């Protein structure tokens, strides 16, 4: 699926359809970064496919000048599974929302993750059902007031990254609509990962859930509340003022301004499942000084054979064992008789 010859520009990936999200919607930024990063990825446009379900986010494929399918609610991972398994040459991207991917589509999602096809699943998490005008979603925080929860939501929300890790995902990352550079970087890594890349993207729905991610996007707060993960680097945040260390299994926040040495810090290792687990659990809904910062970047990445490879191997093996299928032999079977 690599492209030779002339390079693309981001415009090459814009379709001719008017983009119809609400003005100010975080989806615009994600679309833009996708179109911006694609020329760098070396994917031949003819091999590029976006598959989505239903939701505001799921309109994404219409705006991409590539192949695409706006399927039905929650089923995009299954559609993508069939597509990629049937045609491994394609670069397949699933676009889904927190409702589409974690509510109605939760099962397909976790099964896709365990099967590990080489596809990329981008979950636009705005912690709300946007398209149906504002009901709480499986990622909405407890007590959230919405149209369908006038006294506050009583549903303990999913932790989308823990869930993915529990489902044996081989690539688990988080990024956010408001940080274009980081977003592009994560998209690139997702593309590079051979296997199912699962990327949660915090996306602001300014109409029904404005400011849901302010602690991690607002210029004043975000440094203190977020930690950017970098492979092999110590976990430092808050402009270098704070860091994390591990005391046995227990993570601790340390104050680097008080002479704590960087060498004692927890070093990020995206291959370490237990560390990824602990990081995914930094999930306090109302962050504060004594709370752990929300991690952004690649929490976990593991090499595992892909489903489509294994499938193709079996076809090869069948060829080897049984020989190329001969239709007449198949139809004739093993025992026949003649009637004259």
């Amino acid at each position, binding site marked *: 699926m690599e492209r030779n010859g002339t390079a693309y520009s981001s415009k090459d990936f814009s379709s001719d359809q008017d983009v119809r999200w609400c003005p100010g919607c975080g989806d615009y930024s994600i679309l833009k970064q996708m179109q911006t990063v694609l020329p760098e990825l070396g994917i031949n446009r*003819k091999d590029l496919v976006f598959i989505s379900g239903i939701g505001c986010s799921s309109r994404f494929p219409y705006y*991409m000048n590539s192949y695409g399918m706006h399927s039905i609610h929650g089923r995009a991972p299954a559609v993508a599974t*069939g597509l990629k*398994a049937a*045609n491994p040459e394609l670069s397949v991207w699933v676009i889904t929302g927190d409702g589409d991917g974690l509510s109605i589509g939760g099962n*397909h999602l976790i099964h896709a993750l365990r099967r590990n096809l080489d596809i990329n699943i981008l979950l636009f998490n705005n912690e709300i059902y946007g398209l149906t005008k504002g009901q709480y979603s499986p990622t909405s925080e407890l007590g959230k007031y919405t149209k369908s929860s006038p006294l506050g939501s009583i549903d303990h929300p999913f932790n989308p990254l823990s869930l993915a890790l529990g489902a044996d995902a081989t690539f688990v990352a988080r990024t956010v609509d408001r940080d274009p550079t980081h977003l592009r970087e994560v998209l690139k890594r997702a593309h590079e990962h051979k296997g199912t890349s699962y990327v949660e993207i915090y996306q602001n729905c300014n109409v029904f859930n404005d400011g849901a991610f302010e602690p991690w996007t607002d210029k004043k707060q975000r440094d203190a509340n977020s930690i950017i993960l970098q492979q092999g680097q110590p976990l430092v945040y808050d402009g270098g003022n704070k860091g994390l260390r591990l005391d046995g299994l227990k993570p601790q926040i340390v104050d680097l301004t008080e002479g704590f040495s960087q060498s004692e810090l927890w070093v990020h290792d995206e291959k370490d499942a237990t560390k990824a687990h602990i990081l995914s659990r930094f999930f306090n809904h109302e962050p504060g000084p004594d709370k752990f910062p929300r991690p952004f970047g690649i929490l976990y990445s593991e090499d595992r054979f892909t489903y489509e490879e294994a499938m193709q191997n079996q076809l090869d*093996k069948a060829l080897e064992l049984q020989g190329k299928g001969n239709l007449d032999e198949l139809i004739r079977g093993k*025992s026949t*008789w003649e009637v004259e």
Partner: protein
Amino acid sequence: MTMTTREEKRSKVTIHFAGDSGDGIQLAGSQFTLTTALQGNDLSTFPDFPAEIRAPIGTVAGVSGFQINFGSEEINTPGSNPDVLVAMNAAAFKKNIRNLKKGGIIIANEAGFDKRNLRLAHMDESVNPLDEVRASDYQLYRVDITKLNREALQDLELGMKERDRSRNMFALGFVYWLFHRNLDPTLQFLTHKFQTDPIVLEANIRALKKGYHYGETIEAVKRYSIESAKLKPGTYRNIVGNQALAMGLIAASQKAGLNLFYAGYPITPASDILHFLSRHKNFNVKTFQAEDEIAAITAAIGASFGGSMGVTATSGPGMALKGEALGLAVMLELPLVIVNVQRGGPSTGLPTKTEQADLLQAVYGRNGESPIPVIAARSPSDCFWVAFEASRMAVEYMTPVIVLSDGYIANGAEPWRFPKSDDLGKIQAPYFSGKEEYLPYKRNDKLVRSWVLPGQEGLEHRIGGLEKEKETGNVSYDPENHEEMVKIRAERIARIADDYPALERIQGPPKGRVLVLGWGSTFGSIKVAVRNAISEGLEVSQLHLRHVFPLPNDLGDIISGYDQVLIPELNNGQLSKLIRQEYDASVTAFNKIQGLPFRADEVLEKIRELHGA
């Protein structure tokens, strides 16, 4: 019993093998089938599995049955009342004795009628029912198969349990003797099956032969010979419905030059299609066992989008789950084959029994106006043709197509004068010619859009489930456009009927008193019934539908030639509804909803009734 053996010729015999689930009844039955087929008889079989649960040994619920009807004449059904009952235990006897023809033969395994077995079968322990069989009613062979078989294997290094496992071969051997069957095919089969286990192989071979020789030893009353059938000349094989269906899919994919992508979720009685295809990956077949039926159909849609022939198969409850995705497939206009091997409903219903009650679901079971062609198989071998035809329609007309089969023909078998691959028509996908501007929903004169696959340069496009603008396929909320698109989608499916071959009457006059109109697996029973009715002098004809939606254009004319239309169905009258809504005909619905196929005499009786007889 010391009479000498006599010989008798028969033109047709029905044998019912019955025993506990663990008794290897299905294996014995399928071996008898193969041997009989190879001996040139026409035949039809019907396995009667115990309900999905594995019932305790020896109980009536645990009885497994296999019926074969074979003869020198044309055979269309597995037969109604057997001539021979092989009963490996009391429960098998209890369940089946009432069906046995008066004067029929009982072969009973004596050991299966001890007190324990009688108790398990909920029968009176103090009376051995075999003692009650009157010689005037039945020809009874009481054989202590268990004991004889154990004795025969005495010197083999096998546990008791393992020895007893070959009892089915002993019984089969005896039946082979009675009916002059050739041992070779089964000997070959055993040799292959147990190639890695010489002791077990030896046990089975010995059991088979001992059973055969047992016939000679006891000088049984009569042996029967059945001449070969006068089938159409050609090469034949024996075929089971689900196998035929899977082969039809493979054949179609090859003829279309497409890879077959099969996505399924196990469900009785459709699972064997998945099993079969997963053993044929050397035909470029990819099989995907999905997490559920919705994933199966949507994965198949994804594969079709990617340029494969996407197929999924299921049964009733799974079909109910696929409704939403079927609507998507209607909107996308991509090739897709959906097989429903029907079983007894509603809900989980009678999973191992047969029924035809998902017809209206196939025709109407989706939201919105979403027409999908529906075609139905009439016999085990016809499953091949229907699968092939459905695939052809799906690819050439760019549409989902629903195939209806059912548990009866899916598991049943018959001889098949199979085709050569060269004789199968080529299937031509409507690929985009590249000559004009590509508009995803621009149509040819059959209203079929052209197919562009991801990977084709410069033709990138998006499709989806929202209403589309007429030719461009862009999302459109325009009222008139919607109406036009609904009409186009209806019309393009309706026009498929223009390409059907003319309907062919199966038998009877082109006009007259009664037309028996059937669809699906009832074909064989209706055929026998109508043949018999005609030979009784009744004015009756038979027509059988392959295409149930859209209905054939010439159906109305044919129907109008008869005073009455009799529609026998294994449901509560579903085709009857479709016919009544389309034609002005005097329709009599004849329904059986017992999880069992029609017996020919049931249909015959109904025909007589309509004739006022």
